[in-house]
């Protein structure tokens, strides 16, 4: 590790569904450059290069680029995958198609499902382990060779080797992979146990299959991008975001390509965690409301909630540790309707990005949340980036009147107000469900609002949930790119041991921890990146014997090797905190042993995200006008401020509107706004002067 004292240029680039965002930081002065360009869907690299151009970045002088890409997410969701074959235990080739015997929704007997690998490319070979990892049937090596040749003949580029109980004994998978290494023309071979050594054949198999079938796509994309960057003079390493909120170097990323799926939302959470820490807010609910989705996650004690059990769509689980980001609504495009009971409903249908809300002017004809915000004066037609013109407020009002007002016996404004009330109640409810499922009490948290529409709804939702404070970062619209800039290197390991605590060998447990740690250190040590310090986090996934749900028991504050009694006590305490049920008579079981190895990168000064030069000395100077905004049931003359001009130590009472390049903040009457040196704004709910 080298000490770096010279100024560095660090760039974070995040590719989102609509925009590619860039943040460039000069570490010495803290100077920040920002760029936002349209995402190029066919090849995201063009958008990335456009963003670099717009930021006027001199790639020869850039020291590090950290990149968040949706290449793999899109490939999976659209099933535009590399041709991939599966070789599995005799009798089980259909596991990937049968799934877990579910249907997409509780009511309605319809649904479709496309397995990640089609049936004719799923082959079987004789071999079998039992649950304890004992060989029942040895691997048929000739059969293996034959199956590999058959898949090559069928034009497969990637291969998955997935055997039952390989988490208990991976020997057959390793033997099979050795055979594949002789015959397969590339490195795109994924063993089922390699990414996550956990029981559950469907989830493990899908995870491996996703990995194999996005590997070539990710590798080609990254290589193309790196080549482009180099031809423009870039000489350093590029890091790529993973769904666990950590980064890996571009040459390693394809090996565990599945880990990049859903990395976009993860980087937003990392930025929130970082910003919150600097601001002294370590318990956060992140609330990212955009045009097409609303995503929520929980950060407790400065740590994001991570799950090994994320399902990225119906029956598509990816069981690698990922930041637990949940989609709770359709965002600003959610459509409002009056149902046959005469009741107003908002969502779940969405106008999406195309045609989008009426106010986008792309032919949308159904009233949405964004349109309601227009009618209420909370958004301005001219401020919407995606608007294509030709739409007037009267046109939107006419649609509200016809679709909603006439059925509800109210005018367009009242209908718009109703849409916002119902939408906020619904989003708050969905957020509550996330909190309940994670055992979190909203009163202990601050709401970290970002995304284009988050800061417009955040205070109302906080009020609904009893959250005292809303934190709006300096640059809500580029949060994900910022997350790339600040993310650490991170390697996660999960090993299923499935052993009753009473039979646990403390030495064996300790050995697993140490082995995981060493593995992680070895990988991170090899990365050509400066690390400030290495930190290790250990936990156990546990349950009471006979139970199926697992609880994560964090061991960071426990001396190792941990004794049975200590672990039992800690588990019971975690269980009680979570369920308020004390069950001390029943034995505990250790399901998984987890270690995260985190290579912490140097912290940056982010106080210049809003340039200090632009700030005015008084609130009055930051005011850019007055607008009629509908708050608390009526239109009120509301002062409008420019965020970038606000004095650093601002304090103001609602009602107020605060505008900035990429978002609009609504401060309702009764709420108070303060700020900090990092440029964050805080809305103190219910703490304003009347």
């Amino acid at each position, binding site marked *: 590790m080298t000490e770096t004292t010279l100024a560095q240029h660090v760039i974070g680039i995040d590719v989102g569904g609509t925009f590619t965002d860039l943040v460039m930081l000069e570490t010495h002065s803290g100077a920040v450059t920002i760029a936002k360009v349209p995402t190029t869907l066919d090849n995201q690299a063009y958008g990335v290069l456009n963003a670099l151009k717009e930021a006027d970045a001199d790639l020869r002088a850039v020291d590090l680029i950290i990149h968040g890409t949706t290449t793999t997410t899109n490939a999976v969701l659209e099933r535009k995958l590399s041709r991939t074959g599966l070789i599995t235990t005799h009798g089980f080739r259909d596991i990937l198609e049968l799934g877990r015997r579910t249907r997409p929704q509780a009511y309605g*007997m319809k649904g479709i499902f496309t397995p990640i690998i089609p049936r004719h490319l799923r082959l079987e070979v004789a071999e079998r382990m039992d649950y304890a990892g004992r060989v029942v049937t040895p691997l048929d090596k000739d059969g293996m060779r034959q199956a590999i040749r058959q898949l090559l003949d069928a034009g497969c580029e990637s291969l998955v080797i997935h055997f039952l109980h390989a988490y208990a004994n991976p020997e057959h998978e390793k033997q099979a992979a050795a055979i594949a290494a002789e015959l397969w023309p590339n490195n795109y071979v994924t063993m089922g146990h390699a990414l996550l050594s956990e029981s559950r054949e469907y989830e493990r198999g899908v995870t491996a299959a996703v990995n194999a079938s996005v590997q070539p796509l990710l590798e080609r994309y990254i290589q193309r991008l790196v080549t482009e960057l180099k031809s423009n003079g870039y000489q350093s390493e590029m890091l790529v975001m993973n769904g666990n909120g950590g980064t890996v170097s571009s040459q390693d990323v394809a090996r565990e390509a599945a880990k990049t799926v859903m990395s976009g939302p993860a980087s937003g959470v990392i930025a929130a965690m970082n910003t919150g820490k600097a601001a002294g807010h370590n318990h956060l609910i992140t609330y990212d409301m955009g045009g097409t989705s609303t995503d929520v996650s929980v950060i407790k004690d400065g740590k994001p909630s991570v799950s090994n059990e994320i399902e990225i769509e119906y029956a598509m689980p990816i069981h690698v540790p990922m930041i637990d980001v949940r989609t709770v609504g359709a965002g600003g495009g959610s459509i409002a309707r009056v149902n*046959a009971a005469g009741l107003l409903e908002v969502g779940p249908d969405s106008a999406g990005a195309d045609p989008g809300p009426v106010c986008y002017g792309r032919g949308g004809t159904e009233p949405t949340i964004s349109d309601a915000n227009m009618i209420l004066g909370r958004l301005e037609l001219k401020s919407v980036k995606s608007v294509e013109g030709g739409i007037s407020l009267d046109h939107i009002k006419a649609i509200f009147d016809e679709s909603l007002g006439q059925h509800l016996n109210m005018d367009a404004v009242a209908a718009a107000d109703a849409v916002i009330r119902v939408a906020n109640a619904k989003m708050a409810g969905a957020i509550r469900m996330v909190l309940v499922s994670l055992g979190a009490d909203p009163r202990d948290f601050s709401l970290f609002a970002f995304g284009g529409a988050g800061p417009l709804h955040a205070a109302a939702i906080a009020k609904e949930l009893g959250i005292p404070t809303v934190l709006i970062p300096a640059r809500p619209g580029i949060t994900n790119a910022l997350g790339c800039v600040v993310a650490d290197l991170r390697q996660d390991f999960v090993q299923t041991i499935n052993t009753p605590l009473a039979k646990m060998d403390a030495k064996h447990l300790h050995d697993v921890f140490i082995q995981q740690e060493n593995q992680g250190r070895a990988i991170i040590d090899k990365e050509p990146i400066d690390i400030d310090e290495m930190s290790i986090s250990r936990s156990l996934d546990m349950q009471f014997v006979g139970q199926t749900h697992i609880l994560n028991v964090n061991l960071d504050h426990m001396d190792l090797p941990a004794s049975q009694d200590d672990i039992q006590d800690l588990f019971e305490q975690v269980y009680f905190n979570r369920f308020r049920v004390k069950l001390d008579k029943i034995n505990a079981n250790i399901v998984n042993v987890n270690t995260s190895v985190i290579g912490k990168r140097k912290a940056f000064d982010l106080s210049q995200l809003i340039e200090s030069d632009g700030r005015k000395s008084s609130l009055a100077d930051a005011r850019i006008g007055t607008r009629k905004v509908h708050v608390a049931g009526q239109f009120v003359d509301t002062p409008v401020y420019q965020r970038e001009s606000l004095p650093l130590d601002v304090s103001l009472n609602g009602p107020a509107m605060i505008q900035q390049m990429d978002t609009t903040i609504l401060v309702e009457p009764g709420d108070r706004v303060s700020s900090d040196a990092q440029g964050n704004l805080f809305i103190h709910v219910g703490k304003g002067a009347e």
Partner: protein
Amino acid sequence: MTIDPITLSVIQFGLQQVCDEMDLSFSRAAFSPVIAEANDRSDGIYSAEDGSLIAQGAGGLPVFVGTMQYSTRVLTERIKEGITPAPKPDDIYIVNDPYLGGTHLMDVRFARPFYRHGKLFCWLSNTGHWPDTGGSVPGGFSAAATAVEQEGLRLPPVRLFKEGQLDEEIYAIICSNIRVADQRIGDVMAQAAALKVGEDRLNALMDRYGDDVMVAAIAELRTRAATQMRALIQDIPDGVYSSVAWVDSDGVVDEPLAIRLAIHKSGDQLTFDFAGSSPPCIGPMNSVLATTLSSVYLAVRHIFPEVPISAGAFEPLTVIGVENTFLDARYPRPVSGCAAEVSQRIAEAVFAALVDALPDRVTAAPAGTSGNFALGGHNAEKGQDFVMYQLSGGGYGGNADHDGLTNGCSTIGISKAPPIEIMEQSFPVLYHRYALREGSGGAGCHRGGFGLEYEVELRHAEARASFVMDHGRYGPQGVRGGKDGAVNTVTVWRNGEASVPPHLSKQQDIPLQSGDRVVVATPGGGGYGDPLTRDPDAVKMDVMLERYTHDQAKEWFGVIITTDGEVDITATREQRKQSATHL
């Protein structure tokens, strides 16, 4: 008091949220996988006067959609009549009597009175499927029971918690009568804690809007749910829609049981007339009235999923003609098959009757059996007794939009199947196959989904196998010209010899030794529309994926696939012409 429609929307959502939080906390804290993983539970809010349904969790098991209001209604009646002691704050009643508004004995209901200002305002109630409630077979699904006493312990409504304290005496009686009792306390506490969560959340909601507004809102929501359901019914042309669905046998007498249904649609009313269905049966395939009603409601909700669950939504639905049939069983008729099997057949009858009236909404018949295979015995390797269940799904029916889903869960369930690896960790078995059942999807323009085929071997153990399945005699119905899905089959291999249960899908206590095997093939879904109109390329794809053979493509779909896997267009046209004239 009139309430503005927006406050009404928000309160409706708030009530739903209270129930959803109860559902979530019940599942998260529960011990048995049946509740924790399979979500075989439901939570709701019921009126103080007559138990009618105010709101119920969206994630509850569909079969409970209507039962809990009857259960709560019976409780309120018994309290009024002085049969059951009146409630005090923090009491929780327990009841599992099927004839008092229930399903089978394993579905144990808890009811907690909810007070406002010292007055009973409503009931919070939930149901959880306990893994065992005693009786002649582990798990309670006896295929051979002839009286409810053989099915397990029957509890009338009694206060298991008295003013917040568990009654250890009642609990001791329960524990003495059920298997694996030491783990039950976890479920009991989870079930009780969920009701407490509901109480806290409902209090918060009522504090916010005020009791008067809440009372008025609850009444108004009920009226509006009825209006919504009526509006949907209105679109069905007036007339009588009939169907018949068959249960293989009652498990004791080897004769099929008929569900004969005539749905009278008139204006905004649907009347479900079951007159002419089979009389009460000797074996456990009887349904209690609450389950029959619930099955009709859940079928209607599958058709109109947009209507929230509430008593109002059920108002325009009337069920008649069940007296003296096996769909209105009285004490002491055995009933263990009602929740899992008969309920699905009732739903199938509703689908089959309404598919022509609502061709875009209703599907061909789904597999429609829970595929219950129970194995109980002694695990010699681990030195302990065990009870294992394998519940299986099957293919769903084709529909106007798509082919049916493969390996979906039961019509009345929403559960995930346990992984094979977890099954083998937990029980002394080794699976040899767990596969898509080729050829099982009923042919149609949109074919049925495919069933499942598995083969499992008992190892290091002695055990008894029991089966409560259905659709072994007749496959799930195809509609609008579509063919039926494949029938359910069970084959038991003992000492290398194969046998088939005499009742095809039901049998009890088959002794098995190490090395013996069970092979189960579950039904495919019914086909939708004439298979001769199926897109030949879709048939080609099915053949390429080995879901159908070349012969099946020809015989069932009239599509000729060449040896190199292409559609022979000319031969197909000729074949389809011929097949059509043969009809």
